């Protein structure tokens, strides 16, 4: 059996390695302007704006890079909450479909891209997604899309060691994550 002290020491070593930049960090990837793999620039802008509308701070925390990195993984290695919603892979099609539907909705209602909407306009659109009663929505079920991206936003803002700290919640890891995700 691995003792708790051993695990924490191992975790500290891992945390030090994180500091060397060896492992992927979505916040840093965004700051560096790393290119995305599956999502294009338009998707990135929409996803960041949606994430920011759902939970302020998600853009800066790197929601688009987080989602894109996970979509690169095989389904069994994907760490997105979508996995829990029993949506059949490939998961990339789900995100592209949802982001495209959101963009279309924005253009239809306001004749401008979603990321250029005012907070009030974006909030009004997002507020309707959970009900599933969004006229003109042509993507995966809007409640599922809302819940998935909202959970992604919560993951990057609050689901990490730093996120716990922000809320004053002791992380108390047995094995600290070697990287946030």
């Amino acid at each position, binding site marked *: *059996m*691995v*003792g*708790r002290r051993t*695990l924490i020491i*191992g975790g500290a070593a891992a945390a030090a390695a994180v500091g060397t930049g060896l492992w992927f960090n979505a916040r840093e990837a965004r700051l560096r302007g790393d290119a995305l793999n599956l999502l294009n620039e338009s998707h990135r802008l929409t996803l960041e704006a949606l994430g920011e*509308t*759902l*939970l*302020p*701070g998600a853009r800066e925390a790197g929601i688009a890079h987080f989602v894109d990195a996970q979509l690169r993984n095989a*389904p*069994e*290695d*994907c*760490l*997105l*909450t979508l*996995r*829990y*919603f*029993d949506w*059949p*892979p490939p998961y990339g099609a789900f995100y592209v479909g949802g982001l495209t539907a959101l963009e279309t909705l924005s253009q239809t209602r306001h004749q401008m891209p979603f990321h250029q909407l005012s*907070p009030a306009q974006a*909030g009004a659109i*997002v*507020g309707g997604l*959970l009900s599933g009663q969004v006229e003109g929505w042509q993507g995966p079920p809007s409640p599922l899309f809302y*819940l998935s991206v*909202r*959970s992604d936003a*919560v*993951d990057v803002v*609050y*689901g*990490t060691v730093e*996120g*716990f700290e922000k*809320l*004053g*919640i*002791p*992380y*108390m*890891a*047995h*094995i*600290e*994550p*070697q990287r*946030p*995700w």
Partner: protein
Amino acid sequence: MVARRLEADAVIVGAGAAGSMAAAKLAAAGKRIIVLEAGPAWRIEDLTSSQIWARRLKWGGASVLSEGEHRFGHNMATGWGLGGAALHHYANWPRLSPDDFKLRSLHGEGADWPITYDDLRPFYDTVQREVGVSGDATAEVWRPPGEPYPHPAMPTLPQAAAIARGFAQRGWRTSPAPVAILTEPREAREACIYDGWCDAGCPTGALANPLVTYHKQAVSAGARFLANTQATRVLHRGGRRAIGVAFRDRDGEGRVEANVVLLAGSAIQTPRLLLASADADAPDGLANSSGQLGLGFMAHALVAIQGVFDSPLSNFMGVSGGNLVCRDGYGKDPTPGAFGSHEWVIGAALKPNDLIGIAMTRPDLHGAALIDFMERDGPRIGGMGGLCETLPRPENRVSLAPERDAAGVPLARVSHTFGAKTLALVDYVRREGEAIMRDAGAQTAWSSPIVTLHALGGTAMGDDPATSITNSYGQTWDLENLFILGGGLFPTIGAGGPTFTIHALTLRSSEYLLARWASVVR
């Protein structure tokens, strides 16, 4: 290329709670055991404390297609890889009550088990001694007869204590939850420190996941576990004798030939494999002369109740499954129109993110309101779950879909809709729970939609080969040397976590098989 051919005395499909335990018991008796597991070879070091990383432990195999009004939430509820769902289970280990075994006889609902509580009692006692269960048998006034718990109960933490006041107001009793979590060190396993990472897997061994219990014992006894190896078909002779299992792994196809085959996958993957093993000798699926294979699939119905209290509750402390329980409402007929038992599980540890986290308790909130909720209300939230018994319905079933996975095996389709009596029970429990939460002093109280939990039934045991798949030992009626283990055997499900009962049944089956080995393998 010639397919690989392996030999064993027994081949087990699935390395979760049941498969690991059977492997340990049979290997300890000197049998050559091979266990086929579709998922990865998890190690203790993989149990990272993170709700994000925890998602790796949940089902990652072929898609399961869901349909029905109350679709079964499959991927969250099941696992894969060594340890199976038990690797991330919450370790609430209640026993079924005597009434739970005789629903049809006593209440005219559901079905009877072919055994009574007294038949299973000694196996519960043995398992709790072997695994280490903590609880307070005296305070747990609803507990059926059995040996006292080998380890003291968990302490009552602030969140659960606050909610318990609501139960006390109506004269209801609460007791420490019976858990397969150590409250004191045991051999190389450490005591729980109540940090709430059970869902991500417990690397210290405080929580009894198979990697620290029966999988470990099985490996020590010589059992061979083949991870990343998917069983694709049960091989048989004329639909009357099992002769092994065909598999596929990264190197291609192969087969394990064995005298005994034990299927210990989930209540979805086991019927899938049997249905996919159909041929001219078993046209409706193997072990399905009754036509009942896959029928009567069940899931518990859970409604989560939350309340915001006046002051912080240290709700980050505790275990994922709950700190206290109340079974004062365990009777089968709580209100007209409803049927079934329910159990309150009180004061689970909360993390900020994930489906079971603080943010998801109010999915309607976004933007500044969500931040406000997380920062202001989050520390003051108390929660509990009302776990409801549901009834077997033939229309709730596991069947094969036309689509196939990469190995060419048809995907499983799960049809699931709760009946009217269950929905009435859930409504009753929801009202009861919100009232209790307000009585406890919560400023506001609210509840979740129905959540489905635990994959059970579908390969039910029984007394009659015409209406069941196996006898009370999980031995299929059609093939004497083909056994089914796990939650799929449950004819009815009571209202409580099933893992303790799965262990007790598996121990009973293993002892039966060993005692009759010569006649079974003849």
